[in-house]
């Protein structure tokens, strides 16, 4: 039987190369802390993993199922708060606490789903924001439980022991690096499993056209809630991980709207509804925001010698460019959305597809 091949469908040779590359990257990532000791570099890597987990979990609900939740801070915060409260006030070690976080997040997610999934499109987005804001205000005011606006500071993390032997005492960043790496890989694996199962097909059908999906025998309520729960559980894990790693949480850092927006941006920049979109998005956004915050751009300008550090403009840049990091970040995000509507990954795919098409034409004319 003859089959019609689109330019990007011919991927047999490509997939072996991809598999080997993925394996090499994985080995490199696992060996990374053996060669790099700089806590700052490790910190950036941990932020990268965290961002991948957050983006990857949103991707299941927003990217595959098309339910654009801008209220994922609710699950991030719920996980963070549960783990921190259990650790700080009940002396429950975080590796048990995260399960508490997951249990609570599932309940919260089903509750939020029962309200928000009655709505579609922009109304769903607004409802998801509203519910997350309710969670933030609740955490702000339930002072007995959450310590309100003062937040919770972790005084110490109990060492992780297994059968009497101490595996790690969490004194360096290395254990966090590995936990983050494993969670990020887990998120990617789960995304892959979803995409290559009935779930993925049903999710995408709902994203493309709810009514058509419904008429093809897909129970919208059940599948939307499955997507929400997978998504919420991983966001909660990210929240718990963040809380224990940073050691301090308060409502503005884990429950605020900017967290929700950030999570969405990771996917939009990388490529919505693709396995590696969140990875690419994190790869762009984490170094970018870090570079802007630590004023690397001004330093780079000085290095090129275009502007001297002592001149009037140089002093201005030195003093103010770092403060404008949110502005520059915002402008860059707008540029990416305008010129790469399918994200960086989609943009790259389009470029390679174009090349493949012109290649085909060449062989035809020969």
């Amino acid at each position, binding site marked *: *039987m*003859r*089959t*019609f*091949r*689109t330019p990007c*469908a011919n991927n047999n040779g490509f997939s072996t190369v991809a598999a080997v590359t993925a394996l090499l990257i994985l080995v490199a990532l696992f060996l990374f802390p053996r060669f790099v000791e700089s806590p700052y570099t490790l910190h950036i890597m941990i932020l990268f993993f965290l961002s991948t987990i957050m983006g990857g979990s949103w991707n299941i609900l927003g990217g595959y199922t098309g339910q654009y939740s801008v209220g994922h801070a609710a699950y991030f915060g719920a996980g963070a708060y549960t783990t921190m409260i259990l650790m700080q006030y009940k002396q429950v070690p975080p590796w048990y606490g995260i399960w508490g976080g997951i249990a609570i997040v599932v309940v919260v997610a089903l509750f939020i789903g029962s309200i928000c999934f009655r709505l579609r499109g922009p109304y769903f987005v607004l409802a998801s924001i509203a519910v997350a804001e309710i969670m933030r205000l609740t955490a702000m005011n339930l002072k007995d439980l959450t310590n309100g606006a003062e937040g919770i500071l972790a005084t110490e993390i109990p060492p992780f022991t297994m059968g009497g032997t101490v595996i790690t005492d969490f004194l360096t960043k290395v254990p966090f690096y590995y936990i983050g790496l494993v969670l990020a890989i887990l998120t990617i694996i789960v995304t892959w499993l979803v995409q*290559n*199962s*009935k779930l993925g*097909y*049903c999710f*995408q*059908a709902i994203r*493309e*056209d709810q*009514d*058509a*999906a*419904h*008429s*093809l*025998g*897909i*129970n*919208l309520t059940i599948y939307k809630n499955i997507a929400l729960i997978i998504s919420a559980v991983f966001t909660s894990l990210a929240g718990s991980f963040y809380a224990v790693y940073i050691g301090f949480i308060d409502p503005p850092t884990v429950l605020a709207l900017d967290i929700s927006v950030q999570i969405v941006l990771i996917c939009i920049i990388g490529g919505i*509804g693709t396995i590696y979109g969140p990875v690419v998005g994190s790869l762009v956004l984490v170094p970018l925001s870090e570079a802007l915050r630590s004023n690397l751009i001004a330093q780079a300008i000085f290095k090129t010698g275009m502007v001297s550090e002592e001149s009037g403009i140089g002093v201005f840049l030195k003093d103010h460019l770092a403060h404008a990091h949110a502005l520059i970040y915002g402008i860059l995000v707008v540029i990416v959305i305008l010129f790469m509507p399918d994200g960086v990954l989609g943009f790259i795919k389009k470029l390679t597809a174009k090349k493949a098409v012109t290649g085909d034409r060449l062989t035809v004319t020969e």
Partner: protein
Amino acid sequence: MAILEIKHVSKFFGGLAANSDVSFEMGEGMIMGLIGPNGAGKTTLFNCITGYYPPSRGEILFKGERMNGLQPDRVCKLGMARTWQKVRPLAKMTVLDNVMVGALCRTNSLKVAREMAMEQIRVVRLDLRINFPAGGLPIGERKKLEVARVLATQPQLLLLDEVMGGLNPAESEEIIRLILDIKRRGITQMVIEHDMKAIMRISDRIVVLNSGEKLAEGTPEEIVNNRDVVTAYLGEYHA
């Protein structure tokens, strides 16, 4: 036994009666044509039968079971599937994936679903397009995709809402042959169509709706010679 019984079905939107007191029966294996001028309530009746609207009054029985109030996904699982007047391809998914979504209604295995989907894709002759994104298909192929997708849900009763709308004569002819082919496989069909020649050719019986009410029912010959029907379509002068 009748596969589908419509008993005194009415649907009101506020004060407007989109369907009022419509009743008819469909025998197994037949093709029922559903015709009527624009706004006669044909698509509303489809929506009531397939669970998108609950009927305001009356009863819908499929294989003797009451269908009122069932959700569309349950209706599909029970063996009744529909296409849409305005086609609804899952645009970013490929043709094969579109049809697989239909097949996944009957199986949990992607492998089985892929085989089931390929079978239906061959029936509608879209096999050269399987890896093509559905959103990029021309209208004629979108209509065929729509049919392949519902066939993959293994229905016993198929409701086709204007599958020939917007097609050129050659494409329409292809769809007519497809519908007759489906009939040969023992699947009962209800067909909404505006192309009178086509509907007269394929239907075993025809129901005519006019402003929400059933105006006439009978074989194609009876309908063509029915004075009321001609009046509804062309006005008093021609009747």
